[in-house]
């Protein structure tokens, strides 16, 4: 079963058991969730300081091993996605190659001192010789210009990838070089903040919780397939692999398609004419400068298409597909019109249900709050203790969990091919739908501490949910091949 293979990485501190925020007083025996929960995924939720410590360990390891400054170690780690061991091995084989790949050194050595440089090519000033400096490429500029360059780049959110100022030179400026030219404390701080964010983003074991203003960072070892992580701070459920809201049983590529489709169809016009979009790779916000559709992200340097957000690499010959798609509806013949109407009808069918569960989930928050006060009132009135009413609280939580899974069954079904598998899926989906409507009705009307009936109902609902996930959550197939990082 899927989760078993995850267990080899386990240091099992039990923390991860509290996925859905169930109340912590676990007197009852701890169930091995890796066996019963098809979504079980080992991860930890770390504070900024803990992650800093983790990153520093890699930096120290590399700088000690290769006898280089921590600043250089950071540039190299960033380029090799923090795989220190691989860097050390490669460095032993061919140090030069590693330095060039990380852009610590230029790929072609710069011609040595072509002219006795007296003026700075950027500002046209002629400062004394000692106020010039250069990176390993030897392109010399005055210190004032370096400072301005770094200030402009930092203000634009660039940190690890700041480059030399010379034309066609891609050598990166390491941290100590940048900081030796930046004196403003606020700017230094900003730089280091961006640097940290960039490090986390480039680290395959780490992911920021996408919750608004949330500072927690997830750490996990597998980055493939839908992987549920829950934030200790804001309780948001996120997919560790792709960063979208947790979306089992739908897979990462499909949920992205679906979410883009929903955004497109709601405000197609707005969306296309908008002047800013997020980089599809690093999600930094990019402003469209002029009318060019070939975009390059200033932060991660990913090339992509403004229209479809696809990788630009596949746009050479396919560009016309990309633009023709938008044009087609005008040229469509009648039968195509009919097809389009049919497609829209199908989409709306799934979208309405998806949207409905999303709305219900939001309402569920209110339900939980009012349930809490209802239980409190009962307890105050002497009708049992919190322990007696615990089952009601648990069932409301379970309801939420079922709705969540159900919501994400709709995009899954939308993209499924017709056939017996889809029929089975939609059958199980319908069963779960029916079960939670039952449960929902009973939770709202529970007036006694008699738990038997409700607990029975809960059991059925959870079984239906896990069956559906077990049958359709495909992660165990990938587990064998997923890289251990």
């Amino acid at each position, binding site marked *: 079963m899927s989760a078993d293979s995850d267990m080899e990485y386990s240091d099992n501190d039990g923390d991860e058991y509290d996925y859905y925020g169930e109340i912590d007083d676990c007197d009852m025996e701890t169930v091995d969730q890796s066996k019963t929960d098809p979504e079980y995924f080992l991860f930890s939720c770390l504070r900024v300081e803990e992650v800093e410590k983790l990153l520093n360990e890699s930096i120290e390891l590399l700088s000690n091993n290769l006898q280089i400054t921590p600043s250089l170690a950071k540039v190299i780690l960033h380029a090799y996605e923090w795989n220190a061991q691989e860097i050390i091995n490669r460095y032993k084989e061919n140090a030069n190659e590693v330095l060039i790949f990380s852009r610590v050194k230029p790929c072609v050595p710069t011609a040595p001192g072509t002219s006795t440089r007296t003026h700075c090519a950027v500002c*046209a000033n002629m400062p004394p010789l000692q106020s010039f400096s250069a990176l390993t490429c030897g*392109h010399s500029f005055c210190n004032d210009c370096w400072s301005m360059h770094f200030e402009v780049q930092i203000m634009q959110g660039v940190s690890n990838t700041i480059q030399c100022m010379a034309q*066609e030179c891609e050598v990166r400026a390491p941290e100590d070089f940048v900081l030796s030219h930046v004196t403003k404390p606020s700017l230094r701080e900003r730089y280091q903040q961006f640097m940290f964010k960039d490090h986390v983003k480039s680290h395959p074991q780490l992911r920021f919780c996408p919750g608004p203003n949330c500072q927690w960072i997830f750490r996990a070892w597998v980055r493939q397939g839908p992987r549920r992580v829950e934030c200790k701070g804001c309780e948001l459920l996120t997919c560790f692999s792709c960063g979208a809201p947790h979306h089992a049983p739908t897979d990462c590529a499909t949920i992205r398609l679906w979410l883009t489709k929903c955004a497109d169809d709601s405000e197609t016009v707005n969306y296309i004419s908008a002047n800013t979009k997020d980089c599809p790779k690093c999600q930094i916000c990019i402003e469209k400068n*002029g*009318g060019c559709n070939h975009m390059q992200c200033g932060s991660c340097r990913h090339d992509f298409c403004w229209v479809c957000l696809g990788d630009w690499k596949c746009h050479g010959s396919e560009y*016309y597909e990309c633009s023709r798609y938008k044009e087609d509806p005008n040229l469509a013949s009648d039968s195509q019109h009919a097809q389009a109407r049919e497609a829209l009808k199908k989409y709306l069918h799934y979208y309405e249900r998806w949207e409905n569960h999303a709305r219900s989930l939001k309402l569920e928050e209110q339900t939980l709050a009012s349930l809490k006060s209802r239980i409190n009132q009962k307890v105050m009135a002497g009708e049992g203790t919190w322990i007696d009413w615990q089952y009601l609280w648990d069932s409301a939580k379970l309801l939420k969990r079922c709705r969540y899974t159900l919501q994400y069954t709709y995009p899954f079904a939308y993209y499924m091919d017709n056939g017996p598998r889809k029929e089975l899926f939609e059958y199980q989906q319908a069963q779960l739908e029916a079960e939670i409507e039952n449960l929902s009705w009973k939770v709202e009307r529970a007036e006694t501490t008699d738990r038997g009936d409700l607990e029975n109902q809960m059991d059925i609902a959870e079984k239906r949910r896990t069956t559906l996930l077990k049958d359709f959550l495909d992660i165990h197939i990938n587990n064998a091949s997923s890289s251990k990082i």
Partner: protein
Amino acid sequence: MANIAAKRIKREIIEVVKGEEGVLKLELVNNAWTDLLGEIAGPPDTPYEGGLFKLEIKIPETYPFNPPKVRFITKVWHPNVSSVTGAICLDILKDQWAAALTLRTVLLSIQALLASAEPNDPQDAVVARQYIENEPLFELTARHWTNVYANGPTVVWEFNQKVQTLLEMGVDEHNARVALSTYNWDVEGATEQIFS
């Protein structure tokens, strides 16, 4: 405007004026060093030969640490230039900008772009498609635009006549030319598009 930007611009104007190419022009539009007018000559042995192309250059506050914003004022028929806005798809105006680059290099690069189109990295998909599917027609169209908008020497009578036909239907001249160019100079197709 930052001191360094003004100083750079002053030097860059001198650099262009002194340059021996004689194919570039760079001058201030106002006294604030923020708006410049560039001019390049169409490169020889291209459909743009003999034409003079004006460019709008806007200097950002953070120049030269950020690139200038440059677009064609003169209308151009070219895969990497928007026939509508004059926007240019050129890497050094975006992420390949380096503070050590100058406006002279920028103008020369744009000139070089006119001489070697990159239809696989298009700014204007319509033009790029024509370039790929019917290069002779593309060349003639580009020559015609150069003649009409950039004072180029080659008059394409057939195209002038077709534009005239649409003018008589009350269509604005530039719109008529765009529509005809887009529809490979098929008067019927262009008319249909305009009146639909």
